[in-house]
């Protein structure tokens, strides 16, 4: 059903009169996707906030002796109050974060809805025109589906980063039980660095995402709430 455009018509005055089209709408986001999006939004917020509080306990990636701090993250922008509190938030919400991630991925794969966001080789030719439009005042390429090639690239990357945040996190949490995974990341010490780096990459995506949501306007935003996008460009 997703992506099919229907017309919104005004209520008929009498049966024989032609219907008046007042708008168009497309069902873009199935319920599972919307639920996962918003629960994951909360979970991500808590994971980042508590993660930064955990980082405050040892804000370095070097040795303990001598300790060279990388940055002093302000406590006001952290969740949990202290290391133990932050760990409680982190170890609780990681399950919610993982659950929504798994549910989302499972749904996307089995429903076929992944085609909406998955960046494939077919999207490659459309990348450059889109870059030209976004960054170099190029003409706007025709809109054919809910996401343009650059959006697909961004969302596909974000999903990849989400998976990486879980995998790197598992290695920080259980470097011995997931020893093969930790080994791939260079051991516990490097897994912690990767986990931190992936967080910033996700925050970078979120920043871009928020800017684009504002630029794309109200109808686009509402589509993530009701599933329906009014007057899509395709």
């Amino acid at each position, binding site marked *: 059903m997703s992506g*099919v*455009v*229907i*017309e*919104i*018509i*005004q*209520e008929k005055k009498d049966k024989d009169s*032609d*219907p008046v*089209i007042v708008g168009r*709408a497309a069902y873009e986001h199935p*319920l599972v996707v*919307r*639920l996962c999006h*918003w*629960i994951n939004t*909360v979970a991500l917020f*808590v994971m980042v906030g508590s993660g930064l509080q*955990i*980082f405050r*306990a*040892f804000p*370095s990636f070097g*040795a*303990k*002796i001598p*300790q060279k701090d990388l940055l002093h993250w302000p406590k006001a922008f952290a969740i949990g109050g202290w*290391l*133990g*509190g932050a*760990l*409680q*938030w982190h170890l*609780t*919400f990681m*399950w*919610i974060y993982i659950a929504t991630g798994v549910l989302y991925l499972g749904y996307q794969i089995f429903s076929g809805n992944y085609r909406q966001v998955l960046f494939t080789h077919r999207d*490659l*030719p459309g990348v450059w025109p889109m870059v030209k439009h976004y960054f170099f005042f190029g*003409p*706007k390429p*025709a*809109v*054919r*589906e809910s996401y343009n090639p650059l959006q697909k690239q961004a969302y596909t990357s974000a999903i990849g980063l989400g998976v990486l945040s879980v995998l790197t996190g598992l290695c920080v949490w*259980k*470097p*011995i*039980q997931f*020893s093969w995974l930790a080994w791939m990341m260079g*051991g*516990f010490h490097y897994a912690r660095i990767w986990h931190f780096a992936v967080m910033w990459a996700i925050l970078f995506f979120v920043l871009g995402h928020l800017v684009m949501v504002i630029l794309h306007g109200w109808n686009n935003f*509402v589509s993530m*709430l*009701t*599933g*329906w996008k009014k007057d899509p*460009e*395709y």
Partner: protein
Amino acid sequence: MKGEEPSEELTAGERDGCKVDDLEFDENKVEDKKKVEESNVAEKKTAASAMDENSIDEKKFRLVSRRELLKLTPVLALGAFAIPGLQEKLLKKGLGFSDWASALLFRSGHRATTFDNADVAPFDKFPINGYDVDDPGVDLENWKLTVSGAVKKPGRYALAQVQALPAIRQNTRHVCVEGWDVIGRFGGARLSDFLTMVGADPTAKYITMTCADDYYESLDMATALHPQTLLCYEMYDRLLTREHGAPLRLQAPTKVGYKQAKYLMELKVTHVLDKVGYWEDQGYSWFYGL
């Protein structure tokens, strides 16, 4: 804007069939051509489809939208975490779930990575983390470990009795809950060997430890029986120094740092966990296995 719409007649197959060459040829020209075609199609389409099922009544659309929005209400359940009275309970439950999952994930035969001597941090770079004092003033001469609980031979055991058990030396990574880690060299007797010596009940579930500095800790039996879990009396091939927990400490490389109790005084084998741990009582995870 409307003129650009390809309309729903452009099927997925047609989109996919759009050749790379077409786009690379001359983008503007191709696009202009398309625009004209599409606007024609769109005009025809609007008139034709107005009558078919691909339309929805304005009122009904508002109703459908509202209903879909309401379906998102389960998200609000997360607000429970913002309620002060409930927050603590929920987080405790979350931590408990995490510990439960940790115990499931723990593989008793799976060993922590061991390292070459060259990878071991110098002794003076191995951090000392006491919870209050670096030296609780243990009388090393007369020290004995009191063993009690579900054991056949309770009593007080001398260091020599621990040292008489097969000695294990291992270079393993010590991971602190704070996030730092250091590779150190440890030596001691397997806790499992010691438990066999004192005749511990194999069906008991926990080991609790009391320390000279009033610190206390507890271990699950699976970790206590792990081949790398030591009653440690050596670091860097020398007897433990006072600040590292002389004369005896726990060294379990599959656990986080605060589980490695120093200055051991009492060890109890038990079926019921009556004393959990100093940091656990402040809100840290109990299992915290790596």
